[in-house]
Structure formats: structure tokens, C-alpha cells
């Protein structure tokens, strides 16, 4: 298949890896964070963590959308699922994320109207098919997903679909990266920037971070050679004391990003402060629905009560998401918490760090 095999060439990969292993790091220890959960999983699948020299450490970041969803937001979704006449539609990843007392999957098994969809347009179809029900779509995801939800809202308004609304829990990654760098004790030397978020926001979106924090940022693809080249570009910069944005994934990411998607996103949503699991409220890191689109905002259509939410006491997802801890350091990892009975969201999601550790290194 095109754009796949050529980026998996094992001969080239071996040379690139060997070169990383042979570099002179002196007494330096490089902490490089991959923001995106898809990168975390790709690195595990390749066994990269084991193959890199001890001087290069990969730290997993907060780029798994369901993992960073605050437990209050999960509880609000659960409340909606319990309302008569309401159908809650959601991406599959959120189904098994535990709220304070239950999950959407549990609500569904108890007869709650919860439907899993693959795309925002599918949720709109559920609304067309069920004109006498209120259909709520749970909008989670980053800059990649938000425009797709905006597209469904635009379509709903064009068609005059009145029984459709959206809960916007979308989040923006650059503000979270800044918050991580502003936090205490976060010794990071470079970011492997998310490939597909960058498709929308463009490589230019990281310039401000580089300027303010002098930290190298490399937008990286997901294949073996992409990852290795991305690492080379970061290591080079760190060892040479440079910091700039480099776009390794230029076949899928342009410097400015996707203007059509950005425009639609900005038409429907505006930045707002948002709560992140493990990171607290980060200014300007969320997207709320603009006033003009309030008629499609589930938050104004339903009187959702304030939640008395609580996270599971032993779950250390917050620290894992900040890169302050690895999953095996959590006392519940692989015992009370495993993919069958996940205690925290980081174990549920296919992009979650705990889930990835469990799948690839259950014994660590």
C-alpha cells in the first residue's frame, strides 16, 4: 500500500536506530514527550522504548481524548443518558470510561439509550431516525475532532433538525503543552507533536511554545521511519542547543494546517477554560459552543445539575497523563485495574498509556 510500506523499510530503520544508539549523549538524559496517544501505541508496538539508548527517555503525554476528560464531564454524560426521551450518542472510546458510579456502557446494559457512533454524521442520522427523541452527541476530542462535530452542527442547522444537540468537551492541545511546561518539576527536552491534530492546526501552531519555552517541537508521523526520523530531529536539536519547529510529517501536515477545518471550528466554537483530568483547569484549553449556536448546545437545552464527582482514590491517571509517573508505578496496575475491569480512563482507551503498557509490557 502506498505511503505505508516505504515508511516501514526495516533496513533504513536499522540504520536510523543504530545511529541513535551510537550518538554521544555525554552525561545528558533526554526526556522527550510524545503528546499523542496514537504515538504512544505506535512506539510500543515497535518496541522502541526498549531499543532506544538509556539516555533517551520517551514520556507519554496527555493526548488521549477520553483519558483527559474530567470525571464531572463523564458524570454529566451519564446524567443525560438517564433522562427519559434522550438518546446519548458517543464515540466508542468513551463508553467504558468510569464516572463516579457508573459508565455509559453500564447505563446501556441497564436499558439506557446510549448509541455508539463512528462519526458525528452518524449521530445526526440517529436524530433524523428518531424525531420524537432528543439526540445528544458527546463531543470529545481535540482539534482533529472538533471540526467534524462543527460540520454536523452546521448540517443540523441547515436541515432544521431540532432534536439534535451537542455537549462540547473538546480540548486544545497547545495550551495543555504550555501548562505542562509551566508546571513544576516537568523536566522536558522536546515534544513529539501530534500528527493528526497538526493536520488541522498546522505545524505553525507550535511556534509560540518554542518561542516562549525554547523547547524543540517536531511534528511526526506514525510509521516506523517517521518515528525514528522524528526522534533524530529532536535529538539533534537538543544536543546542539537549538529549538525550532520541524515538520517531519509534511505529507500530511502543512505549515498553516487546514484552513477549511479551522474556519468551521472557529465559526461554531470559541476557546474557553476547560478542566483536564490530572492537569486541572487550563485557561483557553477547551472549546465552548458560540452564542449564535446555543440552540444546538445541550448545556443550554438541558438543566444539567452540578455534579458531586469523585475519581477513584487509587487511580493515578492524573500523574500518568502529566508524564510524572509510569503506569506500573500505580498500585492498581494489572491487579484491580486491567482492560477487563478498568479503574481509570487511561486503562480503557485504545490510546491510553496504561492500556498500552498493559498490552505490551504487562510484567513491567
Amino acid at each position, binding site marked *: 500500500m502506498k505511503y505505508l510500506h516505504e515508511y516501514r523499510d526495516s533496513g533504513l530503520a536499522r540504520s536510523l536506530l543504530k545511529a541513535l544508539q551510537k550518538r554521544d549523549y555525554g552525561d545528558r538524559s533526554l526526556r522527550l514527550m510524545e503528546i499523542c496517544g496514537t504515538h504512544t501505541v505506535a512506539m510500543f508496538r515497535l518496541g522502541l522504548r526498549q531499543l532506544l539508548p538509556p539516555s533517551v527517555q520517551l514520556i507519554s503525554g496527555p493526548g488521549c481524548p477520553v483519558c483527559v476528560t474530567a470525571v464531572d464531564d463523564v458524570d454529566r454524560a451519564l446524567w443525560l443518558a438517564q433522562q427519559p426521551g434522550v438518546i446519548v450518542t458517543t464515540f466508542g472510546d468513551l463508553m467504558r470510561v468510569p464516572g463516579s458510579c457508573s459508565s455509559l456502557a453500564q447505563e446501556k446494559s441497564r436499558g439506557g439509550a446510549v448509541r455508539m457512533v463512528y462519526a458525528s454524521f452518524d449521530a445526526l442520522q440517529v436524530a433524523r431516525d428518531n424525531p420524537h427523541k432528543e439526540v445528544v452527541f458527546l463531543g470529545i476530542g481535540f482539534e482533529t475532532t472538533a471540526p467534524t462535530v462543527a460540520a454536523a452542527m452546521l448540517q443540523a442547522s441547515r436541515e432544521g433538525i431540532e432534536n439534535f444537540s451537542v455537549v462540547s468537551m473538546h480540548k486544545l492541545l497547545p495550551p495543555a503543552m504550555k501548562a505542562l511546561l509551566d508546571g513544576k518539576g516537568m523536566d522536558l527536552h522536546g515534544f513529539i507533536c501530534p500528527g493528526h491534530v497538526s493536520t488541522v492546526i498546522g505545524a505553525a501552531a507550535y511556534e509560540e511554545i518554542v518561542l516562549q519555552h525554547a523547547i524543540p517541537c517536531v511534528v511526526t508521523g*506514525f510509521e516506523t521511519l517517521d518515528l525514528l526520523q522524528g526522534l533524530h530531529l529532536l535529538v539533534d536539536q537538543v544536543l546542539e542547543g537549538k529549538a525550532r519547529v520541524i515538520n517531519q510529517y509534511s505529507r500530511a501536515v502543512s505549515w498553516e494546517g487546514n484552513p477549511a477545518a479551522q474556519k468551521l471550528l472557529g465559526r461554531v466554537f470559541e476557546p474557553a477554560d476547560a478542566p483536564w483530568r490530572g492537569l486541572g483547569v487550563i485557561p483557553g484549553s477547551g472549546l465552548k459552543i458560540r452564542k449564535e449556536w446555543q440552540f444546538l448546545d445541550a448545556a443550554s437545552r438541558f438543566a444539567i445539575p452540578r455534579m458531586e464527582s469523585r475519581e477513584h482514590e487509587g487511580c493515578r491517571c492524573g500523574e500518568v497523563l502529566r508524564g510524572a509517573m509510569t503506569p506500573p508505578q500505580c498500585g492498581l496496575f494489572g491487579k484491580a485495574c486491567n482492560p477487563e475491569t478498568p479503574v481509570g480512563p487511561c486503562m480503557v482507551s485504545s490510546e491510553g498509556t496504561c492500556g498500552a503498557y498493559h498490552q505490551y509490557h504487562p510484567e513491567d
Partner: protein
Amino acid sequence: MCLAIPAEIIEIEEEMAVVSVGGALRKASLMLLPEPPKEGDYVIVHAGFALHTVDPAEAEESLRLLRELASAAEDENLP
């Protein structure tokens, strides 16, 4: 939610396309692409929407850089 591999456009009908993701056929909306793609183009698809048309020239260039990097690395790897 993220498909990390590019999808090939098989058929376009107005703003929707049938795409092949490693052989599996799916539907994807084209309405978020800045430029309309053609059949045979590869696109990055996320949650049912194409978000970028893979640029063949950029892909070539990045492979060229990769090979260059690898051969420089090979030279250094020689004892």
C-alpha cells in the same frame, strides 16, 4: 478515533467518498478538505472526515531525506 494510516479515495459522490483503508471500505465526508480531491488520491481520515490530501511531492521529498539520513548514519556506523 484516529486512523493512523492514509486512505485511498475509491469513489466520490458529491461531498462524500468511499475510501479504502488497507482494503476495508468506509465512507468519509470531503467537506472539510480545502481543495476537492480526485479518485486515487490518498487522504488522512479522522472520525469519518477526510482532513488532508496526502501530498505526493512532499512524501517523495521526506523519503529522500530519510534515505539521506540513513546513509549518513550508515557511514558513521562503519567502524
